[in-house]
């Protein structure tokens, strides 16, 4: 069908804008983090080499990863079974659940902090001061993304027919869930995992306002002392997440499933 828009000009325009928006910041970061201090002259990897020497940074990295792992556990134990269950047994609840899961998107981080601060004060007094308790809020923040990707994966296949087919072929309930249902929506689970990981490792507002030293908070504080190290760390974190994003569908089989999703 002919929209009548002069395609070539439009195409160049779009690609130009996109590149500028996405590549611009990346280039800025590489440039800044390797630029010499003052008038030293010549590029240097000083900032990158200094990453390992920052103790705060190292501990915050391990804290952030610990949080990420707990969030993943909550995802697998709470969100995935809930979504599968609602999909199979309570299809009428799908739309309300989707709306509810979208709410964290609509609630500004500040609002969440204000609402949840008393709870965290209580937790840090009575249970633990560790930033790991942030996993609770984060598990809520990832809902909009994980719910969507799971529900999209479930909508692509007739999961209840697959489950019934497995049953008639002699599979027990557990073998059906772990051998058929979970592998079938693996791409949805994986994309939920990746987005969640990116969010948890990148979250700043809430951890900063609740005064927990997560990776982003430490990067921010570091940025006040030595901007170049901060940028180098940011870039490293970013590349790490990218790496996961593109590396996950590695096996031929998983790619087959992803291809099926697209088709």
């Amino acid at each position, binding site marked *: 069908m002919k929209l009548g828009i002069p395609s070539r000009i439009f195409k160049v325009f779009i690609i130009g804008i996109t590149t500028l928006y996405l590549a611009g910041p990346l280039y800025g970061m590489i440039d800044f983090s390797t630029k010499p201090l003052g008038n030293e002259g010549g590029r240097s990897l000083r900032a990158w080499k200094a990453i390992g020497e920052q103790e705060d940074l190292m501990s915050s990295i391990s804290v952030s990863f610990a949080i990420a792992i707990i969030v993943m556990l909550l995802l697998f134990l709470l969100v995935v079974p809930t979504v599968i269950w609602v999909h199979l047994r309570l299809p009428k609840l799908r739309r309300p659940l989707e709306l509810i899961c979208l709410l964290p998107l609509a609630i500004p981080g500040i609002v969440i902090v204000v609402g949840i601060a008393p709870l965290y004060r209580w937790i840090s007094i009575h249970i633990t001061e560790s930033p790991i308790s942030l996993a609770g809020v984060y598990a809520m923040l990832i809902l909009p993304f994980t719910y969507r990707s799971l529900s999209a994966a479930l909508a692509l*296949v*007739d999961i209840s*027919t697959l489950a019934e087919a497995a049953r008639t072929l002699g599979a027990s309930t557990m073998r059906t869930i772990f051998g058929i249902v979970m592998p079938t929506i693996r791409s949805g689970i994986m994309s939920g995992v990746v987005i969640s990981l990116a969010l948890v490792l990148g979250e700043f507002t809430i951890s900063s306002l609740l005064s927990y030293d997560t990776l982003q908070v430490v990067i921010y504080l570091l940025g006040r002392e030595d901007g170049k190290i901060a940028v180098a760390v940011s870039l490293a974190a970013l590349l790490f997440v990218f790496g996961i994003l593109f590396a996950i569908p590695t096996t031929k089989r998983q790619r087959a499933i992803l291809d099926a999703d697209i088709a």
Partner: protein
Amino acid sequence: MSTSAYVQLVNLSKHFGKVRALDGLNLDIAQGELVALLGPSGCGKTTALRALAGLQDLDAGSILVDSKDITFVAPNKRNMGMVFQAYSLFPHMNARENVEYGLRMKAHRSSSSNRKKRAADLLELVGLSTHANHFPHQMSGGQQQRVALARALAIEPNVLLLDEPLSALDAKVRTQLREEIRRIQLEVGTTTLFVTHDQEEALGIADRVGVMRGGILEQIAAPAELYERPLTSFVAEFVGLTNPLPAKVSGGSAEVLGVQVPTVAGSITTGSGLALIRPEWFKVEASTSGNAKIFAVSFLGSTCRLTIDLADGARIRVQIPSAEASNLGIGSNVKVTLKSLPVFVKGV
């Protein structure tokens, strides 16, 4: 209940809220027989099949296979092979792995090489030996249903259950695969229950066809008997095309279009009614003084379908051999009468 029946559904009942999906259904299937359950949506045919598979619990009734009561046996212990309406291949397994799945689930696991051999044999049987390594999304709908059939047969099921397996396919593939299913069923000899809403499919594939309505069997008989001697007007109208024409009935025969024809059992026995006439039971001759006019001609190969406007304004559909239609075109005047075959006459 005949004691020789291999599958016995005895008095099955299941209500969903106020809807009676099964209302005391009785059905026997002999060993090696292919029975088709035919009916409009909501008649309970799928519920009956799912009950036999163990995927649907019942309010009352019992299910016997080979004289053993399996009413409360879990679906994964029943050894039923099932092919679903929707494509149901496991998307993360290729065709061979799908076919092997049921064998891997068995308590007494067969060896890996035996499983491979059996999977290869079955893919050969359904004509897809070259597709063993294809994933479901790389296959057409018809191929997927063939693999699903191979998967269901791989476990050497007691009963093969086919739940409208062809309804998602397009016309040509559907007819081909229907013939394939029948060929394979005859070769393997598996007792089979085939559920469909398509009467052509049911008549074309089954040893016996059961017509269901409101949760019970309205009639079960061989295809030709069902078509030629329906017991109720519902069966007459649901199975095959009929033209309702005014009839005067008396003494076991009816006058329709000026012709006296016998009536079948179940018809009204006296008074005025509507005779339900199959399209191929008409005789049509070109005649300038005829009582009817041809509106449309549709060529079906060996036969032609004529749409004819009768003098009284009724529009009927007639099917005659193509050879007899060569001198009949759109707008021709014709005389329409009936062959002397028994007809069903319902009250008005």
